[in-house]
């Protein structure tokens, strides 16, 4: 049982991180914290891909004499794209938070909802 858990150690970590991030997104009322939760959530998926590309005993995927086993570079490349997307999402999210702060004077979700209810 323990051996089984340790052989899939990376997945356990990924799932823990993923759920942490997801929980933060749902439970936190502060918009900045939501964005960071979202970022943790995305990073867990990056880890999932990166750890998936590891080949036991393999070296970094750069051609060199004396090595024949390489890690799989494709998931890393895919995640490079996803990281850029993550950065863009975070920048856009934080920019929106700044404008929400300017428009509502608060970044707490429940206070914003109260203000919005008045406008309806």
């Amino acid at each position, binding site marked *: 049982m323990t051996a089984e858990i340790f052989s899939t150690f990376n997945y356990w970590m990924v799932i823990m991180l993923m759920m942490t991030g997801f929980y933060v997104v749902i439970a936190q009322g502060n918009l900045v914290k939501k964005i960071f939760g979202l970022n943790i959530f995305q990073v867990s998926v990056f880890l999932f891909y990166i750890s998936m590309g590891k080949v036991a005993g393999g070296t970094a995927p750069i051609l060199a004499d004396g090595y024949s086993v390489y890690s799989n570079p494709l998931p890393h490349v*895919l995640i490079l794209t996803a990281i850029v997307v993550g950065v863009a999402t975070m920048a*856009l999210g934080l920019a*929106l938070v700044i404008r929400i702060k300017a428009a509502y004077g608060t970044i707490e979700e429940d206070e914003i909802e109260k203000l919005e209810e008045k406008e309806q």
Partner: protein
Amino acid sequence: MNFEAHLPALQVVIPLLAAPLCFLLRQKSLAWLFSTIVTWLTFAVSVMLLAAVRENGPISYHLGGWEPPWGIEYYVDTLSALILVIVSGIGAVVMPFARISVEREVEAERIYVFYVMYLLCLTGLLGITITGDAFNLFVFLEISSLSSYVLISLGKDRRALTASFRYLIMGTIGATFYVIGIGALYMMTGTLNMADLATRLPELQKMEAALAFILVGLSLKLALFPLHLWLPNAYAFAPTVVTVFLAATATKVSVYAMIRIVYSVFGGTAFFDHVGIDETTMALGLIGMIAGSLVAIFQRNVKRLLAYSSISQIGYMMLGFSLGNVFGLAAAIVHIINHAIMKAAMFMAIGCATNQARVVSVDDLAGLGRRMPLTMAAMVVGCLSLIGVPLTVGFVSKWYLLRGAFEAGLWPIAFIIGLSGLLAVIYSWRLIEAAYFAKEPEGREEVHEAPPSMLIPLWILAGLCILLGTNASWTLDLAIDVATALIGPAGTGQGGGQ
């Protein structure tokens, strides 16, 4: 250079290249002119693609000359060509309408941002449709999503900001779920090419977890019933042009992606028999049909009313998708096209009214039937299509949905479709009553008919509602072809993958 051979790449590259150029132009009328030319060019490319596909069969384009499954493949068959035509078509028709509407609803120094983001969003949506690579789909999904968050936040109402933020959170969770699913598929099969994935069907059938992630992710993007919370405010407070464009294309492209993944990759009906997800999606679709219409009846804001009606219409598409027979799937595909046209027409009519008379709530429409006869007539055509009156496009898709339901032996569904149609009558009637029978408020300034640059695109769409309703076979034949290719010949209800 052989122009025709490169059509699939041009479809995406033209708007992609145009976006940074538009960013450099900055001057708003120049940006508008440039984007208009580009969108119409894109539309021309997609029409040529559809013609080419009908003539010579599916086109596979290898990016960078790398053979699939190693390289990224653009794969165009009738289904994707059809969606490309509708997305780029709406994108092109909206442009002439956009100039005046954007001027009024977006702050002057941000107008060029609108055109840049519009082009990027178009790139993303076309990319989702054309790509044959599961991860590439994610990249395009994010291009279109990120630009649509910006587009929504351009609205002048401050609630546009919170709507955009909410969409950003939910959209990103959806896209990330999709990536998790794709990652799991890649781990099991070692490939990301959709066609190659489909050949590994037996392996895929063990991948319920991956499919669950993908389905939930895409359902968030397409606003399937319990996951629709981002949609109403996003549509209501975005600038009207953005609402027209997103309502007509964004959710539809996600429905397309769902059909593509479930039917082309996972093998559709055979897979339904195996895991039974069709019952879940069908139930959610049915609840969405009723709940969306019910909530729509009680809305005061016109755009919110139409947004809830969109949620109920997405229920129709998911119902057709889940029926698992040719008529049902064909209905879903036809409804993607039909709903895109009628919702675009309705939001555009509201956009004209907003532009001329600052319409926000349903009551503001009062008396406009006489003041803006052409605009309101187009709105009525849209309402009739939403209800599904014969000779309009709405009827065609509902009729085939009913046939699909009967063929699947699920006759109680017919009642639910009827009930949802009845509810559509009620909320449509509220609009029509306000426009034609309510007393005009006193002290309002003189309201004039919308300018031709707004009326012509509006009537192109409203005309299509009727034209495609009376000549249903134009779209229906293609849709049945597609459905037959995905499922197998009509009546058998069986058959596998590609």
